[in-house]
C-alpha cells in the first residue's frame, strides 16, 4: 500500500542505528493520523545511540548519555533480535529468535560491518573491531587486564588503519593507558579526507601527542607470544601489543538482501534508485547499507538525507536524492588537531587548481581547490586551524568572493556570511540553506536556540553555529542582547562597565550610560550586578529600589500576595532540632508546609508583616536565608554517599555542604542549582543541575549546563577524576565566568551554547586558562566567600530595613483584608480561586 488508504499499514525497519532511528522519527513526526504501525528490529541489545560520539564513551560519557531520544509508543522496538531472513513473496521478516513479522513496506537500515583484512591471527583473543558500545566494553576490559598484569614495560596497542576511525580508536586506547601504534597502508593518515601536505602536518601534530604512526605498511600477521600479541608488518617490523584494534574501513551489512537476490552495487551495498528504493517496490535501503545509484556513503549526513526521502515517500510524497549534492564534508578535532575537508578535497576534477598556504611553524595547513579558470571553489583541506571551515564550505560550487590565497592566508580576507547566496547550505548535517535560515529569522527566530529549534540547523555537529550568529547579526537582530529601552548594553557589558568604572548606584549608571528611569528588566539586572560585585546588603540605600519584590522582602511572592519562606538546609542535611524549629514556626504562624525538590522545606502563606518575626525565630535557631527568592545559588542537593550508602564512593554530603556554604548568597544572571552524587547511580540527579558532581573511584566528575524546567537539559561532562581542591577551583571559575558574561535570565545551558566554541571553549577558558583570567575569577570568588553575610540577619539588625516589612504604611500591623485561607488536607491554602492566566503579550 502507498499509505494513502484508510487502513493501517505495517512498516518494518531492520536496523536501529542513527539512520534507522532518524527514519522512524521522521515518519512519526509527519504521520499525524497514525497511518503506519512501525516495528523496529535491532541487532544490538540497547536502544539507538550516537555512534559518531562513540569514542567519548571511554572518557566517562555513559551509554545512557549517548542514547538517542526515545521513540514514541506507536513504535514497537525489538532489541537484540536481528533479522535473519526475508521472504519477498510473503512480505515477511524472520528474526534470530524465530519472530515472524509481516510488512507492507520494509526499510533496510542495517548499516555496515567493520572490514577486517584477512591476515592470519585476526581472530586471536586481544583482537577487536571498533564499532559498537559492546566493542568498547570489550576493549576497555582487555586494556584493564593488560594494565593489571604483572611485569615491567609499557602496555601497548596496535591500531590497523589510520583513517578517521583508526585515529579515534588510537585516542581511546591512549585514554585507557596503552601506548598505541597506528599502522596505515596508505602513505598518509586520513587518506580519504586530506591530501599529502595536510597528511604530513597531521602526522607531525598527532606524533607530538604521543602517538606512534607507521604509514605505507600493512599488517601481515598476528601471533601469540608469552601472553601478549605480536603484529608483523609488511616491512618485517614486529610490534608487541596487548590489544589489536582493526579499524581499516567498513563494508555494507547487506547479507539479508544479498541472500534473496536483490541487486547489489559493484562494491557491495543494496542497489537503490534516487528514491532509495531497491528493485523490490516495497523494500527501501538507507544509510551505509544502501548503494545509492551504485555508490555507498559512510557518513551520517547522507544517511539522514536518505531517511528523510524514504519517510516522505512512504507517506505518499515525491522526494528524491540528488547524489551530486550529497555533502561529504568533514570537520573534527582529532587528538587536539583540527581537521576539515570539504568538496573536492583531492582535486579530482579535471583541470582543478590547488592553492596552498602551508605554515609548518604555526602548525597550520590550508588548501583550496578551484576550477581551471580560478573562479569557482571546488573544495579544500584545513589542518591545524579549521576556523574558516564554516564559511568556506557553503561556498563550494559558487564563484569565489575574493582572491583564494587571501581567503586562507593568516590575516587575509574573512569571508562573511553576506557573500553566500540563499541556496548555499549553511548546515550540511541537516541540509539547511541560508534562505531557510533567513526565512526563520524573518518569522521571529531571533537567537541561536530558536533557529536550532525551528530549522534543525546547528543541532548535529554545531560547526555552523558561528555562521548562524553572523546571519542573525546581518538580519539586524544582533541587538537582541540589548537589555531594554533604558540601556543599549547587554548584561555582560553593563557588568564590565560597573566593574571597571566604580559606578556604585543605578542612578549614576542610568544617567551616564542609559536613558530614563529604568524598569523591571534593567533594575533587577543591575541589582544582581551590584550584588555580584559585593556592593553590600541588597536592601542598602538605593539598591532596595532596584529589587524585584522577592528580593525586596527576601521571600517568594505567591499568587494571593503572601510569601513563602525557605531557610537554607545545606546539602539537605538537617538535625531533628532544626526540623522541630521549622515545624514549630509553621504551626505558630499558620503556614502551609511542603518539601521542595531541592531537599529543603518551604513554608507558605506568610504576610509581609509576619516575615521579620518568622525569621527572628529561624535565625535564633541557627538558620540562614536560603536565597530561594533570588537569582542566586539555590541548593546543592546530595545523596548520602559514603556516610551511609553501601555503594557510595565519596562523601557526597560533606562536599554538598561545603559547596553550598561556599557559594551561598552568590547572585547570578539566573538561579543556580547543584547536585552531588556519591556514585554513578546518580541519586542526587546531579546531571539535571547547572553544575553537578558525580563521585568516581578516583575523585569527582564535574558536569555543567543542566537544568529542569521548561527546556530540560542534561549537564555535560566538563572534567573527570578531579581531586576535591581542583574541583572547587574549577567550579569557582565556572560560576564567576558565568556571573560575569551571561545575559540576563540566561541559565548556564543556553549560556554555554551561545559561547562561540561551546563547551570546548568553556573548558579552554576555565580549565586550561586560555584567556589568562582564571586567577582573576578565583580572586573574585574568594572575595565573595570572604564577604558573605546572612541577608536576613542583616535585616533583623537594622531598624530602617525592618521598617519596610509592614502591611500598610498607616496601619503597619493590620493584615491585608484580601488575604483569606481555607483548609485543604489539613493545611491552609489561598481561599481565592486561581485566576485563569490569559495574559497579554508582556515583554520577557
Amino acid at each position, binding site marked *: 500500500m502507498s499509505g494513502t488508504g484508510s487502513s493501517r499499514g505495517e512498516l518494518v525497519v531492520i536496523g536501529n542505528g542513527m539512520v534507522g532511528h532518524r527514519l522512524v522519527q521522521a515518519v512519526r513526526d509527519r504521520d499525524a493520523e497514525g497511518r503506519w504501525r512501525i516495528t523496529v528490529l535491532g541487532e544490538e541489545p540497547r536502544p539507538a545511540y550516537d555512534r559518531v560520539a562513540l569514542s567519548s564513551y571511554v572518557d566517562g560519557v555513559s551509554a545512557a548519555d549517548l542514547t538517542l531520544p526515545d521513540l514514541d509508543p506507536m513504535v514497537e522496538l525489538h532489541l537484540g533480535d536481528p533479522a535473519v531472513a526475508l521472504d519477498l513473496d510473503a512480505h515477511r521478516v524472520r528474526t534470530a529468535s524465530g519472530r515472524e513479522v509481516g510488512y507492507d513496506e520494509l526499510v533496510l537500515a542495517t548499516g555496515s560491518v567493520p572490514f577486517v583484512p584477512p591476515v592470519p591471527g585476526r581472530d586471536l583473543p586481544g583482537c577487536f573491531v571498533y564499532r559498537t558500545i559492546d566493542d568498547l566494553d570489550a576493549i576497555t576490559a582487555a586494556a584493564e587486564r593488560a594494565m593489571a598484569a604483572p611485569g615491567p614495560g609499557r602496555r601497548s596497542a596496535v591500531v590497523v588503519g589510520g583513517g578517521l576511525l583508526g585515529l579515534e580508536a588510537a585516542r581511546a586506547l591512549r585514554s585507557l593507558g596503552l601506548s598505541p601504534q597506528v599502522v596505515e597502508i596508505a602513505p598518509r593518515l586520513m587518506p580519504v579526507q586530506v591530501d599529502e601536505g595536510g597528511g604530513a602536518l597531521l602526522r607531525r601534530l598527532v606524533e607530538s601527542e604521543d602517538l606512534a604512526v607507521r604509514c605505507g605498511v600493512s599488517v601481515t600477521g598476528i601471533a601469540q607470544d608469552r601472553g601478549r600479541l605480536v603484529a608483523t608488518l609488511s616491512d618485517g617490523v614486529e610490534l608487541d601489543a596487548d590489544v589489536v584494534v582493526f579499524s581499516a574501513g567498513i563494508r555494507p551489512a547487506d547479507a539479508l538482501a544479498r541472500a534473496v537476490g536483490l541487486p547489489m552495487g559493484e562494491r557491495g551495498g543494496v542497489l537503490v534508485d534516487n528514491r532509495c528504493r531497491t528493485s523490490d517496490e516495497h523494500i527501501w535501503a538507507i544509510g551505509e547499507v544502501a548503494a545509492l545509484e551504485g555508490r555507498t556513503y559512510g557518513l551520517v549526513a547522507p544517511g539522514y538525507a536518505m531517511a528523510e526521502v524514504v519517510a516522505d515517500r512512504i507517506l505518499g510524497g515525491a522526494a528524491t536524492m540528488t547524489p551530486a549534492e550529497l555533502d561529504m564534508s568533514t570537520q573534527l578535532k582529532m587528538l587536539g588537531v583540527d581537521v576539515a575537508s570539504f568538496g573536492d578535497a583531492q582535486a579530482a576534477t579535471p583541470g582543478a587548481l590547488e592553492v596552498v598556504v602551508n605554515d609548518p611553524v604555526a602548525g597550520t595547513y590550508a588548501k583550496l581547490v578551484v576550477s581551471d579558470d580560478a573562479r569557482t571553489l571546488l573544495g579544500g583541506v584545513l589542518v591545524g586551524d579549521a576556523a574558516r571551515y564554516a564559511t568556506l564550505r557553503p561556498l563550494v560550487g559558487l564563484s569565489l568572493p575574493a582572491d583564494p590565497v587571501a581567503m586562507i592566508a593568516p590575516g587575509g580576507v574573512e569571508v562573511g556570511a553576506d557573500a553566500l547566496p540563499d541556496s548555499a547550505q549553511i548546515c550540511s548535517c541537516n541540509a539547511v540553506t541560508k534562505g531557510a535560515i533567513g526565512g526563520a529569522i524573518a518569522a521571529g527566530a531571533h537567537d541561536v536556540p530558536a533557529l536550532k529549534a525551528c530549522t534543525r540547523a546547528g543541532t548535529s555537529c554545531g560547526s555552523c553555529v558561528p555562521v548562524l550568529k553572523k546571519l542573525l547579526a546581518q538580519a539586524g537582530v544582533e541587538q537582541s542582547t540589548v537589555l531594554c*529601552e*533604558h540601556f543599549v548594553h547587554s548584561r555582560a557589558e553593563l557588568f564590565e562597565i560597573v566593574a571597571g568604572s566604580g559606578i556604585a548606584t543605578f*542612578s549614576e549608571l542610568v544617567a551616564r550610560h542609559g536613558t*530614563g*528611569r*529604568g*524598569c*523591571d528588566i*534593567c*533594575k*533587577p539586572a543591575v541589582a544582581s550586578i551590584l550584588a555580584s560585585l559585593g556592593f553590600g546588603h541588597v536592601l542598602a540605600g538605593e539598591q*532596595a*529600589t*532596584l*529589587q*524585584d*519584590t*522577592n528580593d*525586596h*522582602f527576601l521571600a517568594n*511572592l505567591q*499568587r*494571593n*500576595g503572601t510569601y513563602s519562606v525557605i531557610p537554607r538546609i545545606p546539602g539537605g542535611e538537617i538535625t531533628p532540632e532544626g526540623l522541630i524549629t521549622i515545624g514549630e514556626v509553621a504551626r505558630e504562624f499558620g503556614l502551609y508546609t511542603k518539601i521542595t525538590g531541592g531537599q529543603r522545606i518551604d513554608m507558605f502563606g506568610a504576610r509581609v508583616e509576619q516575615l521579620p518575626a518568622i525569621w527572628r525565630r529561624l535565625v535564633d535557631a541557627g538558620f540562614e536565608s536560603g536565597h530561594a527568592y533570588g537569582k542566586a545559588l539555590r541548593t546543592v542537593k546530595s545523596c548520602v554517599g559514603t556516610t551511609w550508602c553501601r555503594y557510595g564512593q565519596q562523601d557526597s554530603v560533606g562536599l554538598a555542604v561545603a559547596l553550598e556554604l561556599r557559594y551561598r548568597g552568590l547572585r547570578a544572571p539566573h538561579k543556580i542549582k547543584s547536585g552531588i552524587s556519591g556514585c554513578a547511580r546518580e541519586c542526587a540527579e546531579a546531571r539535571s543541575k547547572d553544575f553537578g558532581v558525580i563521585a568516581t573511584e578516583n575523585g569527582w566528575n564535574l558536569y555543567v549546563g543542566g537544568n529542569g524546567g521548561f527546556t530540560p537539559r542534561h549537564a555535560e561532562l566538563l572534567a573527570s577524576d578531579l581531586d576535591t581542591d581542583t574541583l572547587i577551583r574549577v567550579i569557582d571559575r565556572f560560576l564567576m565566568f558565568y556571573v560575569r558574561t551571561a545575559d540576563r535570565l540566561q541559565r548556564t545551558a543556553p549560556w554555554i551554547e551561545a559561547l562561540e566554541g561551546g563547551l570546548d571553549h568553556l573548558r579552554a577558558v576555565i580549565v586550561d586558562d586560555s584567556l589568562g583570567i582564571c586567577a582573576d575569577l578565583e580572586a573574585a570568588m574568594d572575595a565573595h566567600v570572604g564577604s558573605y553575610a546572612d541577608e536576613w540577619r542583616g535585616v533583623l539588625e537594622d531598624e530602617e530595613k525592618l521598617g519596610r516589612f*509592614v*502591611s*500598610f*504604611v*498607616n*496601619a503597619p500591623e*493590620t493584615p*491585608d*483584608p*484580601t*488575604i483569606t485561607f481555607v483548609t485543604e488536607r489539613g493545611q491552609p491554602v489561598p481561599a*481565592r480561586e486561581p*485566576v485563569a*492566566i490569559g*495574559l*497579554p*503579550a*508582556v*515583554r520577557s
Partner: protein
Amino acid sequence: MTATVQRVRWETVCPLDRLQPERGVAALLDGVQVALFRTHDGAVHAIGNVDPFSGAAVLSRGIVGDRGGVPTVASPIYKQAFSLLTGCCLDDPAKAVPVYPVRVTDGRLQVGLP
C-alpha cells in the same frame, strides 16, 4: 461646558519622607487599598493597590520606572506595567486601576478619596 466640582476628602497617610524614591508603600484608607509612589523627580502618585490580573493587593510592591518617559509600576505578579499618571495598563488597554489625587501638606502625604 459644565464644570464638575470634584469633592474629595483628604486623608493624611504618613510623612512624605516615609516614601523612598521609586519604592512604593501600601495604605489602607476606609477599607480602600492604595499604592503610593514617589518618583525620582519628587512627584507623588497614588493608584489602586489591587492588581486587576491576579486580584492580589500588591501593586505597591512592584518596580517603579518609566516606559517612554511615562512613570510606571510593574505588577510583581505577572509584570504588566501600569501608568502612575492614568492607572492604565500599558500592556493591556482593557485593564486599568483607579488613580487618586494626592498632595503634600506640611511634609505630610495626603490622599483624596471620593
